[in-house]
C-alpha cells in the first residue's frame, strides 16, 4: 500500500518553548514505504519532532506539508505515546475506542477489536480493567488501539523504553507485521540495537537539530557527521 499522505515535507520548522528554540529549523522530507527511526540521545527533540509531525505540537515558524488536509490527514495517522494513555475502561473498550469515535458499526467494531486483541496477545485479558495490565501489556494495548483504524502512518515515541526484552521483541514483531501490511512506521528511540534491527532509514537529531538523514546501512556503517559517528560508538551521551 502506498500512503496517499506521503511524501510529507517539513519546511523550515522550528518549535520554541519559553523563548528557547527546542527544535529546528528543520527541512526534511518523510518518504513512503519504509521504517523510519528517529534516533538521538535524551533531550535531542525526538518527542517534539514526532508530535510536530502528528500535529500535536504547532511550529513557531515553518510548516509541515502533507498531501492531504483536515480530517483525511488526521484520521490516517496514529500515535503511540512513550507512557501509554490508559482510559478508565476495559482492555477491549480501550482498543475499540477509536472505532467508536469514528462511528464504525458496533458489531464490526467488536469483530475488529477481537482480531487485534488476538494479534497483540491480550485476548484472555479483554474484560480486565486496562489499569490492571503490566507496562508491556499496556503498550501492546496502546499499539492495538493505534493500529485498529488501519492508519497509513503510525508514530511511536520510544514505545519500548520501559519494557523488558520479551515485551520489546513482541512489540517489534507487531510493528514489522504492521509495516508488511502497508503501514508506514516512524519511531523514536535512543536504543541503537533496536534502530539497527528495525530501521530502513534513520533520522538523527541532536540538541533539536536534524544532523543526519540516511539509510540505516549508511548511517551505521559510514555516518556522515562526527556527532552521528560518536553516537553510534556510544560516546555521545547528551
Amino acid at each position, binding site marked *: 500500500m502506498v500512503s496517499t499522505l506521503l511524501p510529507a515535507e517539513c519546511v523550515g520548522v522550528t518549535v520554541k518553548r519559553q523563548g528557547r528554540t527546542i527544535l529546528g529549523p528543520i527541512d526534511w522530507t518523510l518518504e513512503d514505504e519504509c521504517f523510519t527511526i528517529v534516533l538521538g540521545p535524551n533531550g535531542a527533540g525526538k518527542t517534539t519532532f514526532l508530535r510536530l509531525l502528528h500535529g500535536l505540537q504547532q511550529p513557531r515558524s515553518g510548516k509541515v506539508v502533507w498531501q492531504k488536509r483536515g480530517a483525511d490527514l488526521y484520521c490516517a*495517522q496514529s500515535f503511540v505515546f512513550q507512557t501509554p*494513555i490508559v*482510559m*478508565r475502561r476495559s482492555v477491549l473498550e480501550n482498543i475499540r475506542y477509536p472505532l467508536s469515535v469514528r462511528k464504525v458499526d458496533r458489531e464490526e467494531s467488536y469483530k475488529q477489536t477481537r482480531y487485534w486483541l488476538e494479534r497483540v496477545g491480550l485476548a484472555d485479558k479483554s474484560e480486565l480493567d486496562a489499569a490492571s495490565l503490566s507496562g508491556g501489556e499496556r503498550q501492546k494495548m496502546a499499539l492495538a488501539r493505534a493500529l485498529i483504524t488501519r492508519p497509513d502512518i503510525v508514530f511511536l515515541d520510544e514505545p519500548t523504553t520501559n519494557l523488558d526484552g520479551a515485551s520489546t521483541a513482541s512489540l517489534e514483531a507487531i510493528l514489522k507485521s504492521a509495516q508488511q501490511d502497508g503501514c508506514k512506521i516512524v519511531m523514536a528511540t535512543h536504543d541503537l540495537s533496536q534502530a539497527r534491527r528495525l530501521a530502513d532509514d534513520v533520522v538523527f537529531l541532536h540538541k533539536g537539530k536534524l544532523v543526519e538523514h540516511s539509510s540505516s546501512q549508511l548511517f551505521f556503517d559510514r555516518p556522515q557527521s562526527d556527532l552521528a559517528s560518536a553516537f553510534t560508538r556510544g560516546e555521545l551521551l547528551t
Partner: protein
Amino acid sequence: MTDFFGGIFAAFELVFSLDEDLVEISLRSMQVTLSAVVISAFIGLPLGAYLALSRFRYRRFAIALLNAMMGLPPVVVGLVVYLLLSRSGPFGVLDLLFTPTAMIIAQTIIVTPIIASLSHQALRELWHQYHDLLISLHTGKFQRMKTLIWDGRRPLLTATLTGFGRAIGEVGAIMIVGGNIDHLTRVLTTAIALEVGKGDFQLALSLGIVLILLAVLVNLSVHMLSKTERAGTW
C-alpha cells in the same frame, strides 16, 4: 439526654409504624430533592465537562464564579426565588410560589454550582490525562465531553451525591419559597424546624434521624446500583 435517646426510640417507632404523615413528608422530601438533583446533574455535569476542556476568554472568571457559587447562602437564594415567583415578580403569573416546584427551583439553583464545580475539578484531571490521546484521535468537542463524562462517572457520581447531600438537608430556601404548608410543601427539614420552634425536640430529633437514614439509604442504593465498589471494575 432523655430527649436524645427518646428521639432515637421515637424515630424507630415512627419508621416501623409507617406513620402516615411521616411517609408523606418523607416522600415529598425525596421528590423535591431528587428532582432538583437530577435537573442540576443534567446542567452541572456537561457544564463541568465544558469548563474542563474548553479555553475561552473569561474561563478563569467563570470557574472562580462557579466555585464562589458553591457557597450560595440558601436564605438569599430563597429570597430571590421568592421575589421572582411572587405575584408582583416577573414569574408571578406562573403561580408557583408555595408549591413543590418552587422548592425544586430553589434547590436546583443551590445544587447546580456544587455539581458543576466538583465535576469540573474531577474532569480537569481526567482531561489532563486524556488530552493527547483525544487530540491525536481527532475527536470533536462533543465526543470529548461524552468520553470524559463516561470515564469520569465515579467522581461525577460523588459530585452528584454531594449535591444530593446539600439538597436533602437544605431548609432556608425551601422554607421561604415553600412556606412549610402542611400536606402541600412540608418536608422533613422544614418539619424539623417547625417542631424545634414548638419545643418538641423529641419529634424533631426523630425526624432528623429519619432524614439521615433516608440520605444514607439513597447513597447506598446509588453505590450498589452503579457497582462503584465492586472489585476489579471502574
